[in-house]
């Protein structure tokens, strides 16, 4: 047992979050819950997500999960955000069970972003 609470993937995503930042003329959402503050923004063309960015105040798993989400969902459809589930990220990063609540904050934020994008059209 290594005792390392972070996987290599979490370490890489935390160290180099390429999607951290803001976008001009974007739809955005901000949530604050469970000791996590999360800002997500997206630019879309028709129903396609062209760019995603995030800002996060939270533990390394939250920052890694936000980066992984942005990387995975650029190029996807807005409706995919409405159906987003964090269970895949929980397993692939992975995220320890005691931090489930924090990753559910990301799930709530993604779905809220999807709703805002849908309503803004």
């Amino acid at each position, binding site marked *: 047992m290594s005792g390392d609470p*972070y996987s290599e993937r979490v*370490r890489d995503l*935390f160290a180099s*979050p390429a999607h*951290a930042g803001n976008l001009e003329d974007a739809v955005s959402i*901000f949530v*604050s819950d469970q000791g996590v*503050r*999360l*800002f997500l923004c997206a630019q879309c063309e028709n129903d396609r997500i062209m760019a995603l960015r995030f*800002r*996060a*105040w*939270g*533990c*390394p798993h939250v*920052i890694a999960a936000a980066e992984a989400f942005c990387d995975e969902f650029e190029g996807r459809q807005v409706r995919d955000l409405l159906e987003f589930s964090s269970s895949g990220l929980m397993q692939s990063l992975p995220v320890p069970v*005691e931090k489930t609540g924090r990753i559910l904050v990301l799930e709530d934020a993604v779905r809220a972003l999807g709703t805002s994008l849908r309503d803004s059209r």
Partner: protein
Amino acid sequence: MAEAADFIYLDYAASTPVDPRVVEAMFSLLSADGNHANPSSTHVGGRRAVECIAHAAEQLAQLLNTKPARLIWTSGATESDNLAIVGAARHREHRGKHLITMRTEHKAVTDVFEALARQGFEVSWLEPGPDGVLAADALEDAIREDTQLVSIMHVNNETGVVQNIERIGEACREHGVVFHVDAAQSVGKLPVDLSALPVDLMSMTAHKMYGPKGIGALYIADRPGVGVEPQLFGGGQQRRLRPGTQPTHQIAGFGQAAAIARESMQQDFEHLRRLRERLWAGIAHIPGVVVNGSLEAGFPGILNVSVEDIEGESLLLALEPLCVATGSACNSKSQEPSYVLRALGRSDALAQSAIRFSIGRRTTTTEIDLAIRKYSDAVTRLRGIAPEQAG
């Protein structure tokens, strides 16, 4: 397993590397040619092991300016704390069941008092001031006619705050109360003169002063009313106060570490003072950085700082390869803010961002400069990622 060059070790308050001279003293006892015999044996091998232990006791006693006979070997400070607190409370419970300690003690003390409280003792918990120091009149106000034991640590393991154990001990003597000091962070680093200090019981450990893990000691003053009931049973060693085969090589290592500390204490102290000043000067300008505890009342081997609007766990990871602590190492896997910093009045958020840098004999200015750069960069980067909206 990480190699030594992979990280910068700034966690000396958690544990220190064993001095090579200590390793040599221990290693020579382990082989067939060394004094490996059981010191309880009466044959020549056993008698030689006893001589080794007596020599180590002399070395430790010289560091503390006391007599070797006043020292009991234990497995470390946690066991010493348990033996001192439970042992003294039981020894004097026929006189009264009121005990006093502080909120900012190590878990090896607070958990023992909580256990005693569940067993019918009454415990008063003293609060420190914002600088971590116990106010002069706080103890006097708390002592009652039925008070039997006061336990206050010398140097706080998280903040480095130094309590005035001389003044506290005098108040205890005045009221006929036994005084225990957890000195795990001070023995070997600050002068401790037990021939002059009004201290009845003192816990210490080797691995905080360049000795091995797994060996500690408890000082028991030779004074009427001072004593401990044993907590272990199974042999007659150490006047039945702490039975069990004595680990000769561990004890010899502790003795050697004590002898080295006696020689180098002043030089070590100046080294720590210079490096802590350099570290603080390098990070003090960062907006929102505050010292937890007090630079003036603090042991210079420890600098504990918090920073506003930074998440502590992310800060710790961003600081790698620095080996630093978020609180006491015993508690560092917990996500809860430090109870010590909360007792100093820090908010949960500020306490959660706390980083304890602890400096040692081998720390270099290059390592301190790297720590300054890493801390500054980490705070800048995490603030850059954080949302602009206030939470």
